[in-house]
């Protein structure tokens, strides 16, 4: 899952279907879906949001969702 990646790690999304509908739709709008490569930019302290980069854009998501996105490390 994305939440297990550390800052600087890269991964490829393999399953995003467990994420809530709204968040899934919004990530899709941003071009982030199954098959997208993501790179974790930074992780906020105290269980805060995670900043990921995908296709040249930075997006902030909550840890709750980051836990539900399955990735394979690349």
């Amino acid at each position, binding site marked *: 899952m994305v939440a297990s990646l550390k800052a600087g790690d890269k991964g490829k999304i393999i399953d995003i279907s467990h994420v*809530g509908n709204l968040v899934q739709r919004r990530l899709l*709008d*941003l071009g982030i879906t199954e098959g997208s490569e993501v790179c974790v930019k930074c992780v906020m*302290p105290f269980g805060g949001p995670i900043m990921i980069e995908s296709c040249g*854009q930075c*997006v902030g998501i909550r840890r709750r969702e980051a836990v539900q996105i399955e990735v394979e490390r690349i």
Partner: protein
Amino acid sequence: MEIALIGNPNTGKTSLFNNLTGSYAYVGNWSGVTVEKKVGVFKNNIGHLIDLPGVYTLNPLSKDEGVVTSFFLNESVDRLLNILDASQLERNLHLTLQLLEFEKPALIGLNMIDVANKRGIHIDSSKLSEILGVPVVPVVARSGKGCDKLVDVIATKSMQPTKKNLVYYGKEVEEAVTTLTGELKGKTSHSARFLAIQYFEGNEYVKNYVNSIADTQKLNAIKANLELKLQKQYDSKSLANFIYLKRKEVIENIVAEVARKSNSIIPLSEKIDSIVTNRYLGMPIFLLLMYLMFMLTFDWLGTPLSDTLDALLTGPVTNGFETVLNAIHASAFIHALIIEGLIAGVGGVLVFVPQIFILFFFISLLEDSGYMARVALVMDRIMESVGLNGKAFIPMMIGFGCNVPGIMAARTIETPRERLLTILLTPLMSCSARLPVYALFVGAFFAGNKAFIVLSLYVLGIVVALILAKIFSTTILKSETSLFVIELPPYRLPQFQSLWRSTWDKGKGFVRKAGTFIFAGSVFIWLLSYAGPGGLNVDMDHSFLAKIGNVIAPIFAPIGFGTWQATASLITGFLAKEAIISTMNIIYFVPNDASLQGLLANYYTPLSAYSFMVFILLYIPCLATVATIYKETNSKKWTAFSMIYAFAIAYILSLIIYQGGKLFGWV
């Protein structure tokens, strides 16, 4: 000619709008800053340009995005101007393909070609134009490069798309589209294919529209049938996803043909981000920036400027008016009206213009540079813990300038519950109109640590808002759904001209209010204080104003300011918070040179002054804010609630501070 400007958020839409239309709207970096519909006149008068909120797709998630879809369905437009971010072509083309299905004349402004080139992406715009069948003009919206060409193309070329059905959605979908189109035939002036595809995608706005013109059950059946087929044949997750993937396929082919990639340079944004959104440094940096902002506004820069202006108004300006009035032998009534009413009332507010402009300048700077979205990210953890969302922090920050645009900015929050909560709490942010009151009182009672006392009030507003958010979200506004996905746009070096214009745009409202509302209010208040049951020119203590104030004043005695003067100023403060100052200037007017600050010491102690400031901070939002709350929530219940809870909280806190302070022996 009506031209609609449409594109993804953060593609430079607003910059392009400003460049094309001589008139200025607003430039910001925060996703979806364009919350209002704005119309501008083209520089060469070829027509009107309508600025639409930034959207990723025509299938909306939030109310803000719904504006675009209902615009498409309900209003007529001659041409669509689609702005694309060249560095994010894949994502941007999803919207473009939907727009082209709408089958209206369209053209494309390919923006940020400079950014794309730096990232090593080179786009062949003529090839893109050939594939899409509409004109494509490369532009750099921030500098205005290419905008003249764009205007030429809009004015001259015919832009009816030359290609239809760019995306082939597969046999099953296309068949269903044909069936559905048959149902809609002759019943609408919109492209039936567009309506059918949007309907299949689950677009609520389109669904309501087609259901109103065609047989709901038949339409439902067509969609259900199609979904079943796709599931059987392709094991597709959903119809919407199927359509998305088909579009994506087409886009990948287009991009492969038009874009060429070379070596890229690491953008500066990432280097800055590694510091300002750093795990540990993020929050301290934000607080430090806020501290600097306050010190500049109140101590280092703002106060000297305000003092200079004050000296000018009480000295030369008042003397000038005196001379003129004496020269024309004005009656005592007119003389008193102008000197004691108008100059005292309006001038007392104008003195704070420099500080308000400095504050607005910093808010614009935070927005334009792209830092605001980072603040939302940094603050999300705290906001989430009280049942809000990091994005709620932006309306609140804007609320520091003025609550009205703050409340309007809450439209970018996707979930209705979090949005309502943000609307209810934004008035607790200390807006710039409250600033003059603090400035006056800290000057009189806390001269040693002005910035600290004012900062404490701002922080108090935030803390109260957070505590109430927690209380409301666990009681009256309970719900599980929350959505937080935020795009962090690259940092942009703010341009001085656009900064100045957006500062002026926000600040001029304050000056205008001083010229109209405060002007009229000052005359009215002065008349009430000049006249009484005993006739004109009565002693102030026997005026109508004193009579009204005295009736209500006992309520405020327990919190330290049970005088009719304070009460009267609080009543006018409901009209506009800065009217409190005008009222006080009129009420406490003394002809000799004693300043209002010196006089206040006779009526307040430092403790009651602080209690008064806390009360001003929290009590009923001003009239304009209340009207906006009603407009945004469309609910009398919530509007009334926002006034009542604010008054209750203000009273309780002031009571605790005043009575508690007395117990500790402070005065």
